[in-house]
């Protein structure tokens, strides 16, 4: 998992705004952020760094296959 878990969210929306690739969305009813498009996570950690309460955890593996120039 790239962005992996959101736990203890206070609903400030900072992560939704700070994610360059639009991975996170708000659940308006629960007023909590959730991971909507995990396959587009570029594992840059901006959401985690902008979260005021440290609610976001991220692991280094992509959830989809990665195309590289050689392996």
């Amino acid at each position, binding site marked *: 998992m790239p962005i992996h878990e959101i736990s203890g969210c206070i609903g400030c929306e900072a992560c939704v705004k700070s994610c360059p690739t*639009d991975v996170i969305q708000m659940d308006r009813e629960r007023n909590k952020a959730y991971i909507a498009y995990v396959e587009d996570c570029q594992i840059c950690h901006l959401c985690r760094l902008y979260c005021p309460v440290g609610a976001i955890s991220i692991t280094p593996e*992509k959830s*989809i296959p990665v195309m590289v*120039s050689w392996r």
Partner: protein
Amino acid sequence: MSKKTDLSRRRFMGAAAGTLLGASALSSLNLNAAPVKNQPKIDPQAFSSNLLETDVLVIGGGMAGLFAAVKAHDAGARVLIVSKGRLGSSGLTPFAKGIFSYDPATANMSIDEFVAKVSESSLGSSNPVFTRQLAEYSKARVEELKSWGFFDSALYNNSFMRPIEARGIPLHERIMITHLLKEQGRVVGASGFSLDDNRILHFRAKTVVLCTGSGGFKSSGFPLCDLTHDGTVMAYKIGAKVTGKEWNDGHPASAVNSGSCYDNWHGQVEEKPNITSVDIHHDLGVDMNYTAYVLGPSSQGMGPPGGPAGKGPGERSDGPPSMEQVSGGPYVPEAFRRAGGPPPMPPQQSGFLAGLFGDKKPSGPPGMQGPKVGGSSAGMAIHKSEGLVPVDETGLSTVPGLYAAGDALGSYMSGGIYTQIGSSLAGSAVQGAIAGEAAAKASQKAKAVELPASKLAAVEEEILAPLQRERGYSPAWVTQVLQSVMIPNFVLYIKKERLMQAALAYVEELREHHVPMLLADDRHKLRLAHETENMIITAEMKMRASLMRKESRCSHYRLDYPEVDDVNWRAWINIWQDEKGQMQLEKQPFGTWPV
């Protein structure tokens, strides 16, 4: 509930959510699922449409957009910024940590010498007007950033917001601009849609400053998956000339967790920015691609990044093994070769990072320890070598009223190669400021042009088209095909005629037949659909320009034309769309402006 059980319960729920996410990720990609009728989760008919007005429209919220907006405002214009992502938290800007400041009091060379040395390193491909501009104005921009608190935090949103809020400049974030509007031969605005609600926005402006950065093929391990050369392609579609598509940024990625930008860059995003001073290199990157091509991937590290001997991390006695010597490969000018050492190596921040390396925890770009894979920034050229063709030093494009700055401007500030650490960020600041001020002045002379309702309706139709289609292709699948065609080392980096012709045939097929059938069922996929089209057009530009340049120079390397050809190729390549919609290419001699 005790704290302990609460925690373990949370962990359990996390794991469960993780599994679920994995499954939904695959299904939303539609890679393994059977094709189904597109059933949008949002109603394309429910989109509202609004028109906003300003003198100067700045598109993009990175370093260039920040300065363009501030300086256009300070020159007396009404300004508005619109950006696909958040100010200072989108594009490449959040990840750059070294910013160049030319300080005449302490610099070890004059500005004339600086300009000449950059030209020497770039084999003449730099534009001295923009190199000089960088040196002349970088210090002033860095001082302004300092006063806004830029150097006090690793995260840039706060310091970027300070001058914007102080001036009351309206800021529209998370709006993807898809169209530039042209009437009576000049740019008159732009249109796009919101990522957060069902809104289409039209902007009417007297002048536009395009600060949309660069882009790539959503490759892995380099944080540019939000950028797909949108601005360049939009401008191309209204007749602007575009340049620089044959150059390649050559950042590798770690072979382990290649897709993690954070780990590839050793957590550098958590560091506060700092200032760099004159230190001119010839930092390729593509030489690493060449070594991997000739010898095969290495199980060892690929050696240290470039830089003067004695300064790179490879000089440490406990450093990683040097890159293997291979014959042939990209030409490196004599003055920039390392005596007895490995050929100069990639990332542009090497010297600055070398400093960090000596005594601190590992930090900075990939290219150091451990096995590497290539292509982490595939689809992106050297910063400032690609983008709109300027017709003068303000970044005015070939379309009246349309300016570009930063990574969206093909200024050739350092040519087709990285020469000066920290200059990319500083260059965006310097160029943004100059373009913003020029756009403000020009807006005072321009009269506002009405946007015909029929035109706006046609644009709205195009924006929403992927939501309206019942049958077609998912952007994720088309992107995957494009990546498999373009990213291999033997197509994009170690170029040869036959393979590029083959790739071009695929790319043309994608453009002609697949772009008109891209699907979206929500706003996120709508964004992906438009981005996918832009990547495909960029791929075509890259192949055509690379086929045309029958020589090797800087970061453009052809196996079938490995030599620098100064007789025929002291020239940049411009690309534009003719009246019939055909892609055209031309040479523009180094040191000249477009005719």
